[in-house]
């Protein structure tokens, strides 16, 4: 392999630098460079990108890689291959592993596995509380030293507000963002979907928006009062967005830290109506809500209340999902379909521009964890993705790199296809 790479004639879109032009992209070693010398160019491998989009590799702030502990669902190896196939070059993995990532030793174990098996950049998070039980602070300082980029109880919302307050307060010492899954568990006990017309019809127990809104409000208030960098995961409720707006304004006035939020492709694509057939692929938390919520989420992205898109990639084996609705686990696969789905529901549907979408999936999430990723700036890591917007592809089980196939898009045809993904100048995914 040559040390030099020339991606020729693609449409380069780099929203971080406001760049959108047909041009060549140059790579020297593992870095993006502005140009190659004539002799370097002679040596360079040339990739014809005519008709393709060339954009920074996507950044996902919310990936469950399941290793250690649940390697029948996913491993760091399979999960990063799935990510690469989806055009991602950086993923932030959640700490709800077995054992949970609540100590420096487990973080080291994860980092070792990343070193050995990951094909892209994986940044671990550490727990906020010991065992993710929400009762006792995790050694957040040691976790930071071990290399986590954020702290979160990953999928579990701390119910005790005193513990949450102290965790948030303590984490600010290390300038670590706090990620939270906002859910008042006393309102969702035994619930499996959004509370509304469809839960009544299907006879399934419904989670009210209030369960999300209340915790969003609590977290926003704690963020404002402690100056913590709070990031609210997978927001799904229209009213939660109003709470976030209100709080962001207050925080801005105080010039304190930012309050950010993410939205998933599935909350942008689906509503509770999709549960009509009791298909467990649609069983996620927070649940798929109403069309009004879905529209509000799109508007939240457009007006900046929601900072970025995150997949909440939550692999589960087929055996686990193949059950009565009540008994199946929450979560769906997301890495491989994320861009196509968002392109479909945001860009093709006429809500947003391609450049906006790429921004929500690249430098914007990277900024939340304060990493110089998701850009094609000169000197940055040569992490980029080639996309064929004209292509369509069918989502099939065989097509998945992920060990799990719990995707509601199975059997569907999606627009726009990632054709190549490069990480540090190396080809880590190529559509064959």
């Amino acid at each position, binding site marked *: 392999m040559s040390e030099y790479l020339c991606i020729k004639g693609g449409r380069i879109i780099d929203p971080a630098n406001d760049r959108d032009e047909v041009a060549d992209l140059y790579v020297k070693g593992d870095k993006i460079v502005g140009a190659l010398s004539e002799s370097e160019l002679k040596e360079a491998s040339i990739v014809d990108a005519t008709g393709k989009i060339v954009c920074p590799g996507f950044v996902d702030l919310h990936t469950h890689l399941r290793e250690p502990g649940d390697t029948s669902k996913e491993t760091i190896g399979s999960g990063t291959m799935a990510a690469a196939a989806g055009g991602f070059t950086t993923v932030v993995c959640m700490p709800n592993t077995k054992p949970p990532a609540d100590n420096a030793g487990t973080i080291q174990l994860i980092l070792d596995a990343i070193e050995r098996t990951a094909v892209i950049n994986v940044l671990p998070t550490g727990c906020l509380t010991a065992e993710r039980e929400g009762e006792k602070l995790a050694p957040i300082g040691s976790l930071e030293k071990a290399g986590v980029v954020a702290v979160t109880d990953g999928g579990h919302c701390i119910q005790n507000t005193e513990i949450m307050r102290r965790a948030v307060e303590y984490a600010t010492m290390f300038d670590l963002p706090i990620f939270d899954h906002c859910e008042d568990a006393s309102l969702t006990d035994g619930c499996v979907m959004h509370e*509304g*017309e469809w839960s*009544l*019809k*299907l*006879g*399934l*127990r419904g989670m009210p928006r209030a369960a999300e809104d209340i915790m969003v409000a609590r977290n926003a208030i704690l963020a404002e009062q402690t100056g913590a960098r709070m990031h609210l995961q997978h927001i799904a409720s229209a009213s939660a967005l109003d709470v976030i707006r209100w709080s962001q304004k207050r925080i801005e006035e105080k010039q304190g830290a930012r309050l950010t939020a993410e939205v998933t492709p599935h909350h942008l694509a689906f509503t509770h109506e999709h549960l009509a*057939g*009791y298909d467990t692929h649609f069983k996620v938390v927070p649940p798929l809500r109403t069309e009004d919520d879905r529209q509000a989420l799109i508007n939240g992205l457009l007006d900046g209340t929601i900072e970025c898109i995150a997949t909440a990639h939550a692999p589960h084996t087929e055996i686990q999902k*193949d*059950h*009565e*609705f*009540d*008994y199946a686990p929450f979560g769906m696969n997301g890495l491989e379909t994320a861009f196509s789905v968002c392109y479909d529901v945001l860009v093709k549907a006429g809500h947003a521009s391609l450049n906006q979408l790429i921004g929500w999936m690249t430098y914007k999430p990277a900024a939340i964890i304060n990493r110089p990723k998701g850009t094609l700036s000169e000197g940055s890591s040569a992490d980029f993705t080639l996309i064929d917007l004209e292509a369509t592809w069918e989502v099939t089980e065989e097509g998945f790199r992920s060990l799990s196939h719990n995707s509601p898009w199975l059997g569907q045809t999606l627009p726009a296809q990632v054709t190549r993904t490069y990480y540090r100048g190396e080809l880590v995914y190529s559509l064959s």
Partner: protein
Amino acid sequence: MTKPTPWKRKHLTGIEHLEPGELETIFETAESFKATLTRSNKKLPSLRGSTIVNLFMEPSTRTRIAFEIAATRLSADVITVSGNASSLVKGESLRDTAMNIQALNADMIIIRHSAAGSAKYLSEIIDIPVVNAGDGAHEHPTQALLDAFTMREHLGKDLRGKKVTILGDILFSRVARSNIWALTKLGVDLTLAGPSTLVPKEFEKFGVKVSHKLKPALADADAVMLLRIQHERQTSTHFPSLGEYTSMFGLNQLRAGYLKPDAIIMHPGPINRGVELDSKLADSGRSVILEQVTNGIAIRMAVLYLCGSYKDQKKGKA
């Protein structure tokens, strides 16, 4: 009144997707079966030679026995598998249990399960007809059919414009849901009543009225259907106590006075005497509770017969 339409379904997993004409078909079939119930020889040969498995993953003595009797009257062999007693289902998934039953050459499965959607899930796994005997808080189609059948006998075959009130725990009730679908399809003016925690306003989206005040809810009703009230784990946060419920929503002599004079009182059983229903009212001439039980046999015979004949059609074609 709608005309009966030919039965083309393999499964009966709920009422929601049935056409009004299909309901009439079931009623007509049940009427002819009901006429045979009082004969000395009650057996009909309709399902002779077929094996029906009564898969009760959640206990219910009444419904199970009613289905057993209905199947026996049609000369089918019935095997009941109870979720908590059988080794067949111990630690085994519903899929595997179903596959086993099918491998044992059963011709039909009747399923009762605590999880909503499980009857539909089962129907997607196996090749033989599935009859839903209650899935979580979703549907209990044969109960709604027997309820409507009983109303037809008392209020006239055309139920359009009749005022019916269902009173009690609607939120967790599959009986209520199936009745909402059945009765609205038949043109009934339906009101759901009970405490706001158990009767959410959102039910109005299904074409019914919701009321938390008993007087207007019961005024001039042709029938009132009570649901069993339980104050257990599931509902303990939904209302303060059984005593409070009875004082606010229990049907007593005074409140029964709001009904039309010849209105009927219904209950799917088992009754909590003195909780949702005054004991004397339960035994009064207005109560049709035991008729409902008897009609349950005819309705279930009709459902088993109709879903069973689907299988014959298929065999005939092959």
